[in-house]
């Protein structure tokens, strides 16, 4: 903003306030009359989208903290309690987790927009550097947030990333111990990450204020890269940019809602539904998708310290972009050679992202090294040289002139597709060499899916008669059996089922623990008092708790299937895997060395499963006429486990439908409002 405010309050109270704290004048000059280039395209909405997503993350985060416990013994269960018991807890959690992904998707598009249009060039260098600082803070915040649920990936990501600092010579180990607060990642680590995860978003908000301030001093860049010269080149921010941004934000929220309500676990990793186990490393540790390119860069350098240096410098180099790029011309619209290198750079980033999800073996390593090399070559060699070697196209004299001549911005559709692809869940689940499970038909699949009550009740019966003797279901309470959207037992039935179980209670007045019949409020009691007893009874193998098993299992989908899955809403990888394993017991092939105490299973990763075949035909006496076959039992118990893992599935999809209809109506109304508002501008 430049010059004195043009805000003239009419009513007495506003005059009084304005004389003491000119906040309304600030809002007026910054967001109402503030001149904005008239030719901005929708790539310019992402700044506003980012501010919106920051607010969403802060609000959902504060509300989640009301229910979360930052202690290693309680963190995982407190998150599950949010998902199951807290009113709309499932919605708040999914909004926050998917909101982080949306936040990063928007920031990458925002950054690439800046790189394409030269928005980092003079006089916007400080604006750009503030942006790099915000990005670094976002990465730290996202990393620490991911640790909080204390799943397997949370724990091991914390271990790997904190261990990066051990690469620092002399003081590295000391720094790592200092970060951990112990000899390994543990409770002190979790608690301090919680504190900092709550703090950093407010630091981000502060830097965002500086970022917007720096922007308003120099004004927006625009697709031509030619600064506004006259009033004809700009329009007032309100209503023009306001309503255009509101429209595109609604479209963005439609994408966000698609993930939250229909494929909320698509961008996550199934292993994070397994509670953290310091003794077992997952077969493939991968970070969330938004860190994958940097993960690939880190792993491609064979030297520990240089790998860490490459990782950090790949981000820090961005801060020097205003000086690395020597061209006088801002916008790639007028730099035909740079434009090609830009798209190559985008492809390289997406490629690095894909490679970050692959195991660090064979051809993947070679490809990572090539792409990493190109990443640095682009920034350190191509950009400086291009400024001298390239002959840019002639620039328009002004923004108005370019608009009147119909100069259109090159469609950056590939950017969107690339951005979406970057958002792919590059989950490398430990499914090496095991075939993909066949797809089953599930009544709860798809946008209008619901659980088949009879099937879930049969599945519960299979659990009780077969699985329960070894597998606990500790996160479920008997009362869940009577809730909407599940097996739907009546109140008296739930009480009767609960009373069949013996639950530990006490101590009584004599100081002794005792057993009593279960009540609806009780959780399902575990079959063994502790893990060691469970192992002893099962040949050394620990039967996993099954409360979230259907979400803790998945399998490698491969390209292009994982792209189609976004549109088909395929979320039932866990149940498909469970059915496959239960039906997958076979005789081991002759050349397969089966370890002792194992059984050969076609679909189990590594093929050697500790559990002997649990189901046989006729084992459970169904009374509703369903076939008493292993195939039927396995589908029913998988459906039961799918409900146990996601008891609010039906409500989620139902509310999702209402939200999508609402958002489509809102986006439509905003589009027509935007057209009306811009009609006069477009006419001249």
């Amino acid at each position, binding site marked *: 903003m430049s010059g004195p405010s043009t805000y003239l309050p009419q009513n007495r109270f506003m005059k009084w306030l304005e004389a003491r704290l000119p906040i309304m004048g600030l809002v007026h000059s910054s967001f109402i009359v503030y001149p904005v280039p008239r030719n901005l395209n929708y790539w310019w909405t992402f700044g506003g989208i980012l501010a919106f997503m920051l607010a969403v993350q802060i609000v959902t985060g504060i*509300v989640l903290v009301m229910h979360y416990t930052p202690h290693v013994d309680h963190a995982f269960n407190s998150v599950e309690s949010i998902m199951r*018991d807290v009113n*709309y807890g499932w919605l708040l959690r999914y909004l926050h987790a998917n909101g982080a992904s949306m936040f990063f998707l928007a920031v990458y598009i925002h950054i690439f927009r800046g790189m394409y249009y030269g928005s980092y060039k003079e006089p916007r260098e400080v604006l750009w550097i503030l942006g790099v600082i915000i990005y670094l803070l976002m990465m730290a915040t996202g990393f620490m947030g991911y640790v909080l649920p204390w799943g397997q990936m949370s724990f091991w990501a914390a271990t790997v990333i904190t261990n990066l600092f051990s690469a620092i010579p002399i003081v590295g180990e000391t720094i790592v111990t200092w970060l951990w607060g112990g000899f390994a990642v543990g409770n002190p680590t979790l608690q301090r990450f919680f504190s900092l995860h709550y703090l950093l978003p407010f630091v981000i908000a502060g830097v965002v204020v500086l970022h917007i301030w720096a922007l308003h001093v120099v004004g927006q860049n625009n697709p031509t890269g030619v600064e506004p010269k006259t009033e004809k080149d700009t329009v007032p921010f309100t209503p023009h940019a306001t309503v255009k941004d509101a429209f595109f934000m609604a479209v963005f929220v439609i994408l966000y809602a698609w993930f939250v309500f229909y494929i909320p676990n698509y961008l996550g990793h199934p292993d994070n539904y397994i509670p953290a186990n310091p003794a077992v490393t997952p077969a493939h540790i991968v970070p969330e998708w938004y860190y994958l390119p940097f993960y690939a860069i880190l792993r491609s350098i064979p030297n520990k310290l240089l790998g860490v240096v490459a990782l950090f410098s790949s981000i820090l180099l961005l801060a020097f972009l205003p000086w690395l790029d020597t061209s006088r011309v801002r916008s790639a619209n007028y730099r035909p050679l740079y434009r090609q290198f830009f798209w190559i750079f985008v492809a390289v980033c997406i490629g690095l992202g894909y490679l970050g999800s692959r195991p660090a073996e064979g051809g993947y390593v070679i490809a990572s090294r090539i792409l990493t090399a190109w990443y640095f070559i682009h920034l350190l060699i191509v950009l400086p040289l291009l400024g001298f070697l390239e002959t840019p196209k002639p620039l328009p004299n002004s923004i108005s002139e370019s608009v009147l001549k119909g100069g259109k911005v090159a469609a950056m559709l590939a950017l969107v597709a690339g951005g979406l692809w970057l958002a792919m869940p590059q989950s490398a689940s430990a499914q090496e060499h095991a075939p993909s499970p066949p797809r089953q038909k599930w009544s709860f699949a798809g946008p209008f899916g619901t659980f088949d009550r009879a099937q879930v009740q049969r599945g519960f019966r299979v659990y009780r008669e077969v699985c329960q003797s070894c597998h606990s279901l500790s996160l479920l*309470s008997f*009362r869940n059996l009577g809730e909407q959207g599940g097996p739907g037992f009546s109140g008296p039935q739930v009480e009767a089922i609960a009373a069949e179980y013996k639950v530990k209670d006490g101590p009584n007045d004599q100081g002794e623990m005792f057993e009593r019949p279960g009540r*609806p409020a009780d959780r399902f009691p575990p079959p063994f008092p502790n893990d060691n007893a469970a192992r002893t009874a099962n040949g050394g193998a620990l039967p996993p708790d099954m409360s979230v098993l259907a979400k803790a299992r998945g399998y490698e989908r491969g390209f292009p299937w994982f792209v189609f899955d976004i549109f088909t809403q395929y979320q039932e990888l866990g149940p498909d895997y469970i059915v496959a394993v239960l039906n997958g017991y076979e005789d081991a092939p002759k050349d397969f060395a089966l370890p002792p105490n194992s059984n050969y299973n076609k679909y189990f990763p590594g093929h050697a499963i500790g559990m002997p075949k649990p189901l046989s035909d006729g084992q459970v006496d169904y009374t509703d006429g369903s076939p008493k076959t292993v195939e039927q039992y396995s589908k029913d118990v998988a459906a039961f486990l799918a409900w146990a893992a996601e008891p609010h599935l039906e409500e989620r999809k139902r509310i999702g439908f209402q939200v999508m209809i609402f958002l489509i109506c809102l986006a439509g*109304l905003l589009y*027509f*409002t935007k057209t009306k508002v811009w009609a006069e501008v477009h006419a001249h």
Partner: protein
Amino acid sequence: MSSAEPTRRDFLYIATGAVAAIGGAAALIPLIAQMNPDASTLAAGAPIEVDLAPIAAGQAIKVFWRGKPIYISHRTEQEIKAAQTVNVASLPDPQPDSARVKEGHDQWLVVIGICTHLGCIPIAHQGPYDGFFCPCHGSVYDTSGRIRQGPAPANLPLPPYAFVSDTKIRIG
């Protein structure tokens, strides 16, 4: 275009604003609802059953229900008589003893042990009436849990309860 009459453009703006406002209000609902007691808290507040058999005459026990202390007092003949033979109109919070016990079960007094003054837990079998005495500010309750002296304005409240059998009550 005259600005005196509403135009199609105005209708569009009003409609958009209204839809946006509805969306904003709807978005607030989960944020406010999440602070209400969650399902496990509600389940933990379900009714409890208490066995009265171990409680001897003249004895009072304290159980917790919904986070509140509840006195279950097995009253002696003396205590019952003292509670019943009182001029109800003279009480600060007039209530006959019969309204504070279940019919046929005079010997059982079940009250929430929270002083109606500022919330301390009164001590059973204390004070001039051998009822309850609150040490915080000296409120005195009788053997029916009714306020007699002191700053408390009301009698000790009764929880919802019922006799499942002669020796068992369900509170809640």
